[in-house]
Structures are given as structure tokens and as C-alpha cells.
């Protein structure tokens, strides 16, 4: 790596930061500091703007760097991630987006608590939302660290740490000053940059192979060292049945997790109506689908052009495949084209991380202030402004995410996101679906559904090979590995649903028919929606 790459990438990234800080200042010039403004950006975004912002929230560094890297290393098995990530949007579109927009105000808890005794339900869903957000944040932080390691030659641990800290500090500034409006505009800018960069790289890869996708695949298979096996499932998740169940578990978590992600749910409140929420999801599906199709080309392209060994040599988890590919496509390490393209891709990846981190931080600070603080604060205590609490919470969450991000540095980013999805699918999705569609659902059912999914999911991760027992674990020195799968979804998602059902049928509470009628009528018609 020459100094040129580094300077240019940092320069481009600096431009992005300057622009986004400008946006933040601009949109907060005459803010009223109302909750409506801070959490939902005044609810006045158009479907297209929100569609780009959703896509921006969703197309994280995990997709851009992680999935392409997995495809470059394991071929077809990496592609399974993109399929799951995309199909998940049908769950969001069909079952969640419009109904949540109609019933809720700012967070998941608003939707559930409308039917139930408010306090326990808010505390439960607030806790699970914060857990999911922190896990997701860690993945993004790891992505930032990896990227800077590549940029600075991979040696400087201090630089890596400082990047993670710097990203955290910037996101706190965005969120606490600009709220949802600034965060949304940052997502939109980032989305356009990311899609532009991906299109450019995809075109270059296809040009390299004269538009012949078939030859691209054949070359990739050949240079991967795996032959035809590279183009079929099984390289990563084949072999013993543990690995196969692990994959099924992951597949389930991916498809069911998206609908439970707090930062995705909070995006539906930034548009005025359910119809606008639906149209923004349609936009998002188009953008996200196109993006994942292109990451497939990039992943196989990295394998074909660089070879899997070179990718693995740079970063064992494959996270650096795309920047390396850009370097090669531009003309190699010593050419101007290579330098520019590499710097561009690195800057886009940074921007991606920053934007996603801002989005998640915002939604989790909403959970802390709107759900947890509002429910837990002592009665009679001076009621502080909720928005002020949210700003402080953003700082606290930033600190936690930075600390964990430094710890989890060597895990694959896409894999970490898989964990966040598993927790979201286990803890948030059952309670959300039950309260939207089940007439007899009760408060106890809601609380049990959340904890019955959240606790198994977290405990199973702690007992899994991710944390201990193998050389790749977070704590390789100790061994408390009792659960064989890396992803807990296969067990914890059904547990969440069963716990919600069990809590409901065992509770003495008579379900409130009028409240259910209200939820159902409001969710399908939008009556009384804010």
C-alpha cells in the first residue's frame, strides 16, 4: 500500500464527512427538539427518499464487504446470504411495513404496548431492541476496523482502534445533533454513492470478461482452487451435519430477522402514510435486489481476477475482497486508475459504515429514551425531556459499540450481522406478529415472547463456538462451548413463538377485545395514525 492510496481515500472520506456534517448543521438549524422531529424527521419524507434511506440502512458494510468476500472465498455459499437478505423483505412488505406505520409512533414498543399493559411490554421490547442494535453496531465497527487495517497496511493496531473510535464519535455527533432528518439524508447520500460505486465496479468486471457471465463463473471456479464445487453449495456449509444445520439456522434468521430490526422499523415512521411506507419498501426492494445481484458479480469477479488465495491472504475472513478488486480493476497497485478506484471504494465503504452506524444508533437511542427511560424512571422524578435523554443515550450506545467493536475485530462482518438477525427474529418478530394478528394475545404472552426469544438467543451465542472453545473464538483460551451451532436461530426463533403462545394461554388476563379491534382497524385502515 502506498501513501497515495491512503491520502486519497482519507481525502475523499473527509469530503463525505464534511458534506454530511454540513447536512447535519443545515437540517438542525431551526429544530424544535420535539420527539416527532428527532425520531421521525417530521414524517415528511417521500417514498422515494425513504426507499433510498431504507436501502442505505440495510446495505451495510456487511453486504458490501462481507458478502462479496464470502463469495470470493466460498463461492456459491456466500450467495446464499444475499438471497436470504433479499427474500426477507417480502416479510417486511406483506406483514409489517404498512401495519406498523399505521399503529406505531416511533418504536416497536409503541405497536405492541398499544394493546397491553404498557410498562412491562415497553421494558421488554426496549431491552431486546437495544440488544439487537448493539450486536449490529459491533458488526459495523468491525467492518470499519478491517477497512482501515487494509488502508494502512494491516499492521497498525493503534490506527485500527482509533478509526473505530473516530467512527463512533462522528456518529454520535450526527445523531445527537441532527436526529432522524440528518440521519435520513446521510443514508440517501450514502445509498447513491454505494450504488454508483457498485455499478461502476460491476461494469468493469463484466467488461473484463467481455460481458460473458459464463466465462466469469468458469474462471472464478478455476482460480478458486475448488473447481466446479465453487459454483455449488457446500464449500462452507457442507460437510458434517452441524455445519448444515448451522446454515439452515442462518437462513431462517436472515429471512425472519429483517422484520424485527429496530432501525428498519423506525424508518417507516418517517413517511406520512402507510401507502407511502409500502411504496418506500417497494423502492427499497428494487434497490437492494439490484445491489445484491451486483455483489454476486463482484464476489465471483474477485475470485476470478484476484484468486481466492490472494483474498484470503489479505484478510482471512474475506472482508477486503472488494477494495482489492477495485485496485486491480483500475490498473493495479502502481497505476493512477488503481489508486483512484481503490480510494473511492474505501471511502464509500467508510461512508457506508458511518451511515449505518448513525441509523442504528438513532433507533436504539429511541428505544432507550422512549421505551426504557420513560418506563423505568422513578415516579415523581423530574421528567427530563425525552429527546435530551435520547441524545445522551446515543453517546452511551456509541461507547459500548466501540468497546465491543475493538474486541470482535477478527470475525467476518457478514457472519456477525447474521447473529444480530437471529436475535431480532427471535425476540422482536414473534411479539410483533402476535400483537398485529392474534386476537387473544395478552400482556404476559408479549413479555414471554420477547424474553423467551431474547434470552435463549443470547445464551446460545455465549455457549457457541463463536465465543469460546475453538481457535477462531473471541476467547480462544477458555472453553464453555456447549451449543454446536454458530447461529442460534434454528432453536431460538421457534422458542420465541412458543413462549409467546405459552404465556398467552397460561395467563389469567382476559384479552381486551376493544383494544384488539382498535389495533386491527387502525393497522388496516390507518385510522388515527399519527
Amino acid at each position, binding site marked *: 500500500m502506498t501513501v497515495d492510496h491512503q491520502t486519497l481515500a482519507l481525502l475523499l472520506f473527509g469530503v463525505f464527512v464534511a458534506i454530511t456534517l454540513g447536512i447535519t448543521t443545515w437540517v438542525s438549524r431551526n429544530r424544535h427538539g420535539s420527539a416527532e422531529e428527532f425520531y421521525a424527521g417530521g414524517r415528511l419524507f417521500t417514498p422515494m427518499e425513504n426507499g433510498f434511506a431504507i436501502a442505505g440502512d440495510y446495505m451495510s458494510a456487511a453486504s458490501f464487504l462481507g458478502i462479496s468476500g464470502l463469495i470470493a472465498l466460498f463461492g*456459491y455459499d456466500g*450467495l*446464499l446470504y444475499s*438471497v436470504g437478505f*433479499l*427474500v426477507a*423483505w*417480502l*416479510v417486511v*412488505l*406483506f*406483514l409489517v411495513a*404498512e401495519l406498523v406505520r399505521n399503529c406505531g*409512533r416511533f418504536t416497536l414498543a409503541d405497536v405492541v404496548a*398499544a394493546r397491553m399493559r404498557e410498562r412491562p411490554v415497553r421494558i421488554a421490547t426496549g431491552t431486546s431492541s437495544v440488544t439487537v442494535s448493539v450486536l449490529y453496531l459491533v458488526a459495523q465497527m468491525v467492518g470499519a476496523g478491517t477497512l482501515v487495517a487494509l488502508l494502512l497496511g494491516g499492521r497498525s493496531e493503534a490506527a485500527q482502534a482509533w478509526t473505530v473510535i473516530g467512527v463512533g464519535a462522528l456518529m454520535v455527533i450526527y445523531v445527537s445533533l441532527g436526529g432522524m432528518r440528518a440521519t435520513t439524508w446521510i443514508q440517501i447520500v450514502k445509498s447513491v454513492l454505494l450504488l454508483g460505486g457498485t455499478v461502476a465496479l460491476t461494469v468493469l468486471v463484466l467488461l473484463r470478461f467481455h460481458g460473458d457471465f*459464463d*466465462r466469469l*463463473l*468458469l474462471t472464478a*471456479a478455476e482460480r478458486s482452487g475448488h473447481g*466446479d*464445487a465453487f*459454483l*455449488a*453449495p*457446500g464449500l462452507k*456449509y*457442507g460437510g458434517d451435519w452441524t455445519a*448444515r*444445520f448451522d*446454515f*439452515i439456522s442462518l*437462513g*431462517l434468521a436472515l*429471512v425472519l430477522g429483517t422484520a424485527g430490526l429496530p432501525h428498519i422499523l423506525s424508518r417507516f415512521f418517517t413517511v*406520512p*402514510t402507510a*401507502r*407511502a411506507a*409500502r*411504496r418506500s419498501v*417497494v423502492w427499497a*426492494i*428494487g434497490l437492494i*435486489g439490484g445491489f*445484491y445481484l451486483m455483489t454476486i458479480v463482484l464476489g465471483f469477479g474477485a475470485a476470478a481476477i484476484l484468486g481466492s488465495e490472494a483474498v484470503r491472504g489479505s484478510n482471512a475472513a474475506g472482508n477486503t475482497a472488494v477494495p482489492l478488486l477495485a485496485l486491480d480493476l483500475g490498473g493495479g497497485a502502481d497505476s493512477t486508475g488503481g489508486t483512484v478506484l481503490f480510494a473511492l471504494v474505501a471511502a464509500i465503504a467508510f461512508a457506508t459504515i458511518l451511515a449505518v452506524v448513525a441509523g442504528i444508533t438513532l433507533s436504539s437511542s429511541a428505544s432507550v429514551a422512549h421505551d426504557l427511560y420513560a418506563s423505568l424512571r422513578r415516579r415523581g422524578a423530574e421528567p427530563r425531556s425525552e429527546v435530551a435523554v435520547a441524545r445522551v443515550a446515543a453517546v452511551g450506545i456509541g461507547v459500548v459499540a466501540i468497546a465491543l467493536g475493538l474486541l470482535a475485530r477478527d470475525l467476518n462482518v457478514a457472519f456477525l450481522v447474521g447473529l444480530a438477525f437471529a436475535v431480532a427474529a427471535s425476540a422482536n418478530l414473534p411479539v410483533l406478529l402476535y400483537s398485529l394478528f392474534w386476537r387473544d394475545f395478552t400482556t404476559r404472552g408479549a413479555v414471554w415472547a420477547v424474553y423467551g426469544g431474547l434470552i435463549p438467543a443470547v445464551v446460545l451465542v455465549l455457549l457457541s463456538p463463536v465465543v469460546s472453545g475453538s481457535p477462531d473464538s473471541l476467547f480462544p483460551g477458555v472453553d464453555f462451548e456447549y451449543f454446536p451451532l454458530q447461529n442460534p436461530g434454528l432453536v431460538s426463533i421457534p422458542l420465541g413463538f412458543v413462549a409467546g403462545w405459552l404465556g398467552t394461554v397460561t395467563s389469567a388476563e382476559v384479552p381486551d*377485545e*376493544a383494544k384488539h*379491534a*382498535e389495533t*386491527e*382497524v*387502525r393497522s*388496516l*385502515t*390507518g*385510522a*388515527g*395514525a*399519527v
Partner: protein
Amino acid sequence: MHSSDGRPREAGSARFDDPWYDALASGWGELDDTGAPEATPPTAGDVYLEVQRSAAFREVRSRYRRFVVPAVAVFLSWYVAYVVAATAAPGLMARPVAGAVNVAMIAGLGQFLSTFLLTWAYARHARLRRDRAALELRWDTQELTRVTQGRPVGGAS
């Protein structure tokens, strides 16, 4: 394209039969028969229950469910079948179709295609079959809840 964000049109433009509306207009007296002697206005909860039982709402709900239930069943089983096939039958998935393209590649791209198609179908169905009726119901319900004693409309607290 009609705007769903605007104010409701006058009643004359309603495209669907609206039998529940009359029932509501004449129904409040009966509701109070067992209650206090002076007629208390209905609460918001009563309004929502009444709307929920109305034919117009049941029609919107069943249109929604008639599309969503089969669609969810189809795409979830198609996705689970794909995942299970990828893990349990890699031999089948590796079978070549044309050139380097094998069954697995076709199935993966098929998932993308089916997602796009279902998205389009859902958006179209909602726009043509649900949006207008739901909007009418929304304004009517809000009109009714406005005159109630109970909680404020929308539970805005």
C-alpha cells in the same frame, strides 16, 4: 393516480357498498339500552369494535388476507425448500444446466426473480383492491372517534 394522502372525497364517490355506515348511524341508541338512563356517547373502543364488525372493514381485511396468506406460504416454502436443498442435496444443486450455470445458480436467481414479482403483485393488489376502501374507512372511523368521550383519537398521549 388518486391521492391517498388528501382529504376524503364526498360520499358520492365511494366505490363500495357501505351498509355498516347506516347501521352505525342508527345503532348507538340500542347500544345504550342496558346502560345509564341518560344516553352516554360511545367510547372510542365501541367505535373500533363497531367498525371491526362492519361489512366494509371485513371486506378490506379479507382482501388483505386473501392475498397475503397464500403469498407468504408460497415464498416461505419456496425459500425453505431452497435452503434445505442447498444443504441436504448439494448433488442435485450442482447438476449443470448450461455452461457454468447449474441448478443452484438458477434457483438462486429464481429467488431474486420471485421476490421482484411478488413485490410487484402485492403493490398492485394493494393499490387497486384495498387503498381506496381503507382510506374511506379511515376518515369515517376518525369522524366517529372524534365525537367519543374516550381516549383521544389515535391514542396520542
